[in-house]
């Protein structure tokens, strides 16, 4: 069964355990600035929004990559950056309309969420179940995907 990250802003307290877990998983250090999941704070509204790649079907990043460095992990459906191939051209960072691929100065490559091979560290670390890794069909992160399909695809092309 395909599983996806389900991000629920209503449950997020903004503690950033997810950012530490992500950076530890990827870098072996606690470094929120290099986390691939990011929590945004809405001060006036008193809301927190954890945010990362939805692994969208359309995969603008993958399509935009000039050197085939972004591929699909067949078991998780994650769009994964192959660091050995990425040249750091950054085209994917402007192509992804969700802003979830970022250039990483330290490596000279881009970074994005790869679902940790099917066991996302962020979801494990989240104390409030604001981040869960669940059956893809049940995820409300369809909200993001619906947004993707509704607006971006529509803007770019529609099948009639």
């Amino acid at each position, binding site marked *: 069964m395909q599983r996806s990250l389900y991000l629920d802003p209503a449950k997020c307290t903004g503690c950033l355990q997810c950012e530490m877990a992500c950076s530890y998983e990827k870098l072996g250090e606690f470094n929120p600035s290099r986390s691939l999941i*990011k929590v945004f704070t809405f001060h006036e509204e008193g*809301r927190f*929004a954890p945010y990362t790649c939805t692994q969208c079907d359309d995969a603008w990043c993958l399509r935009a990559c000039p*050197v085939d460095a972004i591929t699909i992990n067949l078991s998780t459906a994650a769009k994964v950056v192959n660091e050995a191939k990425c040249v750091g051209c950054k085209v994917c960072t402007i*192509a992804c309309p969700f802003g979830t691929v970022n250039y990483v100065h330290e490596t000279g490559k881009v970074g994005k969420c790869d679902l940790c091979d099917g066991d996302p560290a962020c979801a494990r670390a989240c104390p409030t179940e604001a981040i869960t890794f669940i059956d893809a069909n049940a995820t409300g992160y369809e909200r993001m995907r619906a947004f993707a399909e509704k607006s*971006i695809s529509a803007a*770019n*092309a529609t099948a009639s």
Partner: protein
Amino acid sequence: MQHIIIGAGPCGVVAAETLRKKSPSAKITLIGNEPEPPYSRMAIPYYLVNKITEDGTYLRQDQHYKELGIDYLSQPVTSIDTGSQLVTLADQSQLPYDKLLIASGSHPVSPPIEGIDLPHVHSCWTLEDARQITALAKTGSNVVLMGAGFIGCIILESLVKRGVNLTVVEMSDRMIPRMLNETAGGLLKKWCIKKGVKVLTSTKITAISESGSGMQVALDNGDSLLADLVITATGVKPNTDFLQGSGIEVDNGVVVNNRLQTNIPSVYAAGDVARGKDFSTGNFSVQAIQPTATDHGRIAALNMAGMDVEHHGSLNMNVLDTLGLLSYSFGLWMGVEEGDSVSLYNPEAYQYINLRFGVDEDEDVLIGASMLGDTAHVGIVRGLIESRIHLREWKERLLDNPIRLMEAYLARTQEFG
């Protein structure tokens, strides 16, 4: 069904792959005209600094085309007979097609000045050009880069890293004039100078002549420069010469409709060669950028496969890394008349952000942006522009502080705040 795709850049390759997905049994032929397997020009700067080897520029793995059942030929196309639906190759062989995609890309153009044909004057477009430049751009070599546009700025870093004495000569008043305004272009120039590059703006090269073992480059201000290598990066033009006489309408690029179809119904055009629809203006023009090329490739292929898919236009956008300073532009980055805009300018930190908003009912819609410096989650600029989201109260907040763009995006797409 026989599909032929002329051009093996990113556009052609994506089109071939899309066709294979949608038409499992169709015969697909992809025709390139360089000796190498399909590769990406975007990767050349990284090849120049030995970050990758040549095969690191290849668009796909070796066996990819074979595995997908895509025939790949490397042969220049000399002509097309749209009446009998035949493509003629340089070796005089002919290939029949049912649907044809012209994705032949573009080529660099150089200004008609004296000495432009000298052996050590090169453009930087193909892998072969890159090999030549690698051979000539050695530590301590005097190199003159003609043009500080996209291509010029992309290869700037590789030249500096190769240790050459670099002078950039740009006839416009600033660097990357098609992407940055005076403020941002000026800041980028300051950055390059800080990094040890000589940058001459509002300056033209008038002639190049041989001088001893090198060359002498004459400037319109009366000065001259010594050069072991001159690299021209003064723009590109669509590759349409081979379409002469085919009946396919060309007007500074192949004319297409919003299904990327030419005036000949069985022929489509896409990528740098096509005058596709611009998302922001609704007009048809050549964008010559990578994301548009792959958009085009995909949509043209879907239509070729018999689907009816309308292209609503591609967003003109760019990202450049010039000696470590990132610059971005999206959509109508110069704005529209009467539209609101906001900028933040922090020259000490080499940071600049400028947002542009629409007018009338779109007064709270982001229509363009340009930035200098690191911008996290920058893709949402595309998201905001292409989805035409009304920012509502967030527009005021952005006018107050444009760095809150990501918050605005999340608030308005996740419907809180």
